C-alpha cells in the first residue's frame, strides 16, 4: 500500500525581484496515514514553504515547484492542473493556519464559514464546533471572529480544517500565536482528531519540545533541507546531527534549573546566499575542513559526515 504522502526530490523556488532562489532543495519525505510528523527548524529554513508546496498554496503567486514529485495516496500532485488541485484542497488536504485572527474572514460569521467548508458526509457545523471542544456551539457559530477569544478562534479554525474531512492535515505553526497552555490544548485536539479519523498530520513548528511531545517522527530542517529525521524518542535522546543537538540544548524546558540555556551562535544563511558544503558548517562545533567543501547527504536519518560524534 502506498503511503499517504510521498515527497521525492522536491525543490521549490521563491522570486525576489527578477531573481529566484531555492527555499526547499531536493527534499524527501514520507508520511503514513494516521501518522503525526513534525517539521522543526528556525525561521526561514523552508518549513512553511514545504507545507505550502504540498497543496501549491503559496502566499506569493510567483513561487513555484522546480522539480520533484509529491504523491498523495498514490496520486501525483506536481503538474496537476490548478482546477484539479482546487478540488483536492479542503476535501483531501486540510490547512490549519498560524494566526486564526487573520485566517478567518472578519465579516462572516464563524458558523457560515464552517458551513461553507463542509462537504457531503461531513458532520454538521454545530457538531464540528462541539468536536473541537467549544462550549455553546450555537453562540460561537453566530459570532464574528473578533467576538471570540484567541483560543476559541484557533479551535474554530481547526473545525474549519476538519469540515472538509481531509485525509491529510497540514498545520503551519498552529500554536505560535497562543500562550503555551492554549497551544498544548490545540495540539492535543489536532493530534486527537488525527488519531480518531486516521488523518495524516504534518505539524510545522519552531518549538522542538512540542514536536517531540506530539509527533511520532520529527524532521529537522535547515536552509531548505532536512538535516535529520528520526522517531521522536530517538531524536530527543540521541540526536545525530549537530544542529539537532544545538536545538535541543537551546530549549529552555530541557535546560536544568539554574543553568543558562545555550543559544546557537551565528545566523542561518540568508535566503539565496550561495552555500558550498554543509550549510550548518559556520555555526557547527564539530566542523572540520571537509564540511566546508562537500555537502553531506541525508543517509541513515542524518545529514552529517560525523553523526557518530554528535553528543546531546
Amino acid at each position: 500500500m502506498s503511503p499517504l504522502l510521498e515527497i521525492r526530490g522536491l525543490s521549490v523556488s521563491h522570486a525576489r525581484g527578477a531573481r529566484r532562489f531555492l527555499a526547499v532543495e531536493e527534499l524527501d519525505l514520507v508520511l503514513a496515514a494516521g501518522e503525526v510528523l513534525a517539521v522543526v527548524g528556525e525561521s526561514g529554513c523552508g518549513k512553511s514553504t514545504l507545507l505550502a508546496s504540498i497543496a501549491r498554496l503559496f502566499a506569493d503567486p510567483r513561487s513555484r515547484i522546480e522539480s520533484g514529485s509529491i504523491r498523495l495516496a498514490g496520486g501525483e500532485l506536481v503538474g496537476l492542473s490548478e482546477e484539479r488541485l482546487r478540488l483536492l484542497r479542503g476535501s483531501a488536504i486540510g490547512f490549519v493556519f498560524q494566526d486564526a485572527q487573520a485566517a478567518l474572514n472578519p465579516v462572516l460569521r464563524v458558523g457560515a464559514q464552517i458551513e461553507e467548508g463542509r462537504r457531503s458526509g461531513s458532520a454538521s457545523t454545530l457538531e464540528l464546533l462541539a468536536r473541537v471542544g467549544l462550549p455553546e456551539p450555537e453562540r460561537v457559530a453566530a459570532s464574528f471572529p473578533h467576538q471570540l477569544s484567541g483560543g476559541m478562534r484557533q479551535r474554530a479554525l481547526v473545525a474549519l480544517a476538519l469540515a472538509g474531512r481531509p485525509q491529510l492535515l497540514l498545520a503551519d505553526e498552529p500554536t505560535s500565536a497562543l500562550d503555551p497552555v492554549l497551544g498544548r490544548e490545540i495540539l492535543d485536539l489536532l493530534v486527537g482528531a488525527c488519531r480518531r479519523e486516521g488523518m495524516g498530520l504534518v505539524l510545522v513548528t519552531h518549538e522542538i519540545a512540542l514536536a517531540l511531545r506530539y509527533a511520532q517522527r520529527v524532521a529537522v530542517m535547515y536552509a531548505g533541507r532536512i538535516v535529520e529525521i528520526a522517531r521522536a524518542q530517538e531524536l530527543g535522546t540521541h540526536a545525530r546531527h549537530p544542529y539537532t543537538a544545538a536545538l535541543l540544548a537551546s530549549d529552555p524546558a530541557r535546560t536544568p534549573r539554574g543553568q543558562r540555556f545555550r543559544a546557537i551562535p551565528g545566523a542561518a544563511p540568508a535566503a539565496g546566499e550561495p552555500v558550498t558544503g554543509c550549510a550548518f558548517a559556520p555555526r557547527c562545533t564539530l566542523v572540520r575542513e571537509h564540511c566546508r567543501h562537500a555537502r553531506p547527504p541525508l543517509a541513515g536519518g542524518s545529514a552529517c559526515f560525523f553523526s557518530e560524534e554528535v553528543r546531546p
Partner: protein
Amino acid sequence: MLWAALALVCLLHALAAAAPLLANDAPLWIRTRAGARFPAFEALGWSERFLLLCSPWVLAAPLWLATRSRLALACPLIALLLALCWQAAAGPRVFVPAGEWKRQLGAQPALFAPVPFGYRETNPSEAWRPPTWLASAEIDESGRYVGRAQASGGLELPPAPVEVRAGEPARNAALRHPLGTDAQGRDLLARVLYGARNSLAIGLASALLALVIGTLLGALAGWRGGRTDLVISRAIELVLCFPVLFLVLLVASVGWGSVSAVWTISAVLGLTGWTGVARLLRAEFLRLREAEFVLAARGLGFTETRIVLCHALPNALAPLIVATSFFAGTAMLVESAISYLGAGLVEPESSLGGLVKGGSEHVWMVLFPGAVLALAVISWNLLGEELRDLNDPRLSGEQA
C-alpha cells in the same frame, strides 16, 4: 441614527415614486354615467406604475432590513409583475391637457389627490402667488392683493379674478398653494414633488450605474493586478480628466432622441462617475488579495469567483456603500447645477435646480426647492456614514 437616515431616504424616494398619487390635476376617481373611471391612472406608463407599486415597499424598507426577511427582496419583482399585468389590463394611455379634467368636471362626485394640482397645470391669474397661509397672499374677488401696495412696476399684469377649478381649495384657503406658485401660476408644491422625483431618480440611477461599472472594473484591476490593473488604472485617469459638468451640459442640451433627459443625465453622470468607486475597490482588493483569509479560503478549495464574491467583496463593501451613497447626493447636486444653468430638464418638466433658477427673485421659489434638495443630499450622506459603521462588525460594539 442609522434608522433615521434610512427612513428619511426611503420616505423621500417613496414620496417621489408615489408622486402621481399625491399631486395630480386629474381626479383619482370619478363617477360618470358609464361607471367609475380613474383618470389619474389612465395617463401613466408602465414604469410609472412600477414605481407607484414599489413605493410602499420602499417606505417599508427599514422594516424589512431590520427583520432581514428574504421575502422582501422579491417585492420589487412582484411589483414589476403587477405593473406589467396592470399595464396589460389598462386601456391605451390617455393624454389629456393639464387642467382639462377639472375644467370639464361638472357636479359629479370625484376624488382628488391631496394636492389637486398638476405640475404642468397653469393658472395665469395666480402668477407669483406667495404661500397662501401668509397674510400677504390674500386676494379679493377682482384678483387684487389685499395687504399689498398696488402695482409698482409697469410690467406687472393687470389683476384678474382667480379661477378656482373643480376639486381645488377655495381662493384664500391656507392650503391652496402651501408653497406658493411660479410665473405661470403652477402650484410650487406639485412642482417641488415632481422636481424631487426627477432629482432623486437621477441620483439613484447614476449611483447604481457608477456602482456597477466601478465595482466590475475596480475588482478586476485590484484582483488581477499586472497588465489588467495597468490598463484599467489608465482608463480611470483618462475618465477623471473629463470635465464632467461640460460633458453633461453638452449631452443634456443635445439630448438623445426621444429618451428623457433624466436618463441621459443619469447615464453621463454614471459613466463618468464610476472612477471613485473603482479606485476604492481596486485599493481594497489589492489589500485583500494578500489577506491570509483569502489564502485560507483557497486552502478550503473554493473557486476564485466564490472567493472574490463571497469572501473579498463583503470585506470591501463598507467603502463601496459609502462612496455610492455620497455619489447619489453629489449627482443630485450636479443635476441641479445643470438645470440651474438651464441645460438640464426642459420645461414643463420640473427639476429642483430649474425651480430655483425660474424664480430666484422670490424667496419661496428659492427656499422650498433648495430645502428639499438639501434634505435629500444630507439624508444620502447621513445614510452613507451610518451604513459604513454598520457594515464593519468591528465597530458594532458587540463583544463575546
